[in-house]
């Protein structure tokens, strides 16, 4: 492709600008439009699925848009009031944002570490055992978030759960004497376990695929030079799979920032326990539970902006060289 496109360009340069002007407009249009025509189905689909909703959310976020507006189909523009109210709300800065950001950081780090360790482990196995183990962890990934969350809620049920009754039998604490769902830190510890458990298989399998692309000779060469396992990992493996790690980190960050189901379905997570609210639940609570669609949209826009900023920073720091 690159050879084909560069040839006429070089030819044009060689024979001067006059030559280039002689290409008929129609042919140039045809040539120019062909890629766009081929891209059109994809672009139209993307526009319908992503762009139009994005425009609608932006549009809603500058309105005081409630159930009655939705039903009557009228609009009610209020400028930046929603943004002003949200950004001046101490609840955002004191509870929602720290919960969202802190939880995401912990989850991304843990998911990446566990994912990479599991990938290295899988990589060291023979084909047979690797397939069995990969299948096993893929099951964890395939479990829907709702089901997985209920399993964790049951495990940690303060009265009857496996964890409580085990601790009870060990004589550490009496079952039902402490409600960890009511405590912000314990609540998020359980949510973290749930999210990491659900998130690491994807990372592990993706990194495993990446490990296969690192040339074996590099390891041999490094070993000959006297590099131990740790420095081989740091100097050979990491640079070899850096683009894949970057994609994994960006994806997990996005997933862990907008986590909703895993919080909403835990006891008190639906807005009853305000201490544990995150941006996703807050946006849902405002827009769907309370019918303040404008406000909920504004929160969603802020969440998107936050993710954009983080993604850009990642891209710049992780993709310094032309790796992608």
């Amino acid at each position, binding site marked *: 492709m690159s050879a084909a496109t560069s040839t006429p360009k070089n030819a044009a340069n060689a024979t001067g600008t006059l030559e280039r002007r002689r290409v008929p407009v129609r042919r140039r249009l045809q040539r120019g439009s062909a890629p766009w025509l081929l891209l059109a189905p994809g672009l139209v689909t993307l526009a319908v699925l992503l762009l139009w909703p994005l425009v609608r959310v932006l549009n809603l976020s500058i309105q005081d848009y409630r159930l009655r507006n939705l039903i*009557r189909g009228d609009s009610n523009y209020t400028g930046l009031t929603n943004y002003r109210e949200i950004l001046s709300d101490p609840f955002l800065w004191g509870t929602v944002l720290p919960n969202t950001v802190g939880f995401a950081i912990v989850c991304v780090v843990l998911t990446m570490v566990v994912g990479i360790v599991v990938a290295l482990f899988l990589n060291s196995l023979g084909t047979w055992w690797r397939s069995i183990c990969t299948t096993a962890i893929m099951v964890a990934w395939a479990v829907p978030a709702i089901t997985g969350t209920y399993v964790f809620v049951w495990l940690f049920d303060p009265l009857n759960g496996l964890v409580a009754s085990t601790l009870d039998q060990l004589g550490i604490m009496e079952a039902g004497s402490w409600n960890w769902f009511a405590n912000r830190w314990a609540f998020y510890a359980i949510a973290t376990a749930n999210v990491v458990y659900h998130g690491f298989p994807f990372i592990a399998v993706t990194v495993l695929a990446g490990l296969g692309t690192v040339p074996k000779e590099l390891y041999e060469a490094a070993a000959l030079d006297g590099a131990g396992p740790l420095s081989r990992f740091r100097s050979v493996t990491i640079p070899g799979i850096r683009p894949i790690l970057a994609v994994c980190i960006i994806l997990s960050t996005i997933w862990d920032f907008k986590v909703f189901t895993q919080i909403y379905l835990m006891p008190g997570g639906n807005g009853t326990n305000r201490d544990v609210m995150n941006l996703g639940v807050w946006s849902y*609570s405002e827009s769907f539970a309370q019918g303040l*669609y404008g406000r909920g949209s504004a929160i969603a826009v802020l969440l998107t902006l936050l993710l954009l900023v983080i993604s850009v920073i990642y891209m710049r720091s992780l993709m310094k060289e032309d790796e992608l």
Partner: protein
Amino acid sequence: MISRRGVLSAGAAGSAALGLAACSGGSGGSDPTDTEANADKTITLWIMQGTNAKTDEYVDAITKAFKDKTGATLKVEVQPWDGAHDKFVTAMSGGTGPDVAEVGTTWVPEFADAGGLDPLTKDVDEAGIGDGLVQGLVDAGTLDDELYGMPWYAGVRSILADRKILEDAGVTEQPGSWDDLLSMIETLKEKNPDIIPFPVAGGSIFAGMPFVWGAGGDIASESGGTWKATINSTESVEGITWYTDLALKHDASTAAASSWLETDSLAAFQQGKVAMFITGSWVPATIKADDEELFKRLVAFTIPAKDKAVAPSFLGGSLLCRFTETEEPELAFELIKLMSTGEFATQWAKDTNYFPGEQKALDQVVADGDDLTKVFAQQMTEGGTTVPVTPAWGQIEGKKTLSTLFSDVLGGTKPQQAADAAATEMDKIFGG
């Protein structure tokens, strides 16, 4: 998600407008009993899933009766409660809604105010079915002197207990006051330290509210068209304090219960870990289906007020509403009439263990019912009450203001402080 809703509404609003324009000529003045003219008309009805174990039989019977009476076809769609609110909202904005639907009492003012429901006052008066309705349900469905939903069925909460556990401890009397209830709980705890005498479920607001009401407090009060929160009044806070102290000071509950919903209390009760708890009049039927033995041991008490045996308790239920976008308002009302009065109303109540919305049918159900039914019926007729009837309630319910209040107090916040916070939040919502 928000955006998807936006697209749906934008696209569907257009089609709804077209639909209305196309059909406006046909409606108005049509005779709902003209079976020939109605032969090719269809009415869509939404009812909620899980209320009636014999839903299929009921649907067959009502479809046939409606066809016989009006000639029109009835299409019944059974909707799950999960996400029902969202579904109604989408349907109302998109013009894809039913002609008639069962709507939970606390949602009616919100939907009516938003313009999704049709007033029924005139039709009800003309049909002469407006008298003898259960007042609590009428109140819940009335906004600005217009009735937006015909009472269909109702339920109320009282105390349900396991007679065996109570007899072992020697406490089987109906408590006549808070003091009686407390001494009952203390005896239960003393005789059987392993049992949870009376769980205080933080996420079950209608288990807590009878104590606020029973102390003379309330959620909010209206004067001159404006609502103001009274959840932080001296009486309300006294009720909140007394109720939560059962857990915090008297060891009546378990720490786990501070994030329990009513269903969690029920589960613990069915496992035999709980002696008595506050639950709905529809629950004995559920227990019967799961555990016949436990059902036989059930005994009910009215929730006591501070100094009498019956405290106000939330009377919830469903109203039958006609949606504004219906093309056949007369047929739609005919269906509402058929379902909410006479034989079909009584049948529904019997099948579901709810109380009918018509006083006459209610009296019949109580007369035929067992001891449990009589206790719940007493709570309903003497103490049935409702939440503030204002469109703002939907938002307060959505924001979980009251659940937050109860679970915060159970988590250690001072009752007055938590109540003040709840009041501030509510006043802000009342103010728009």
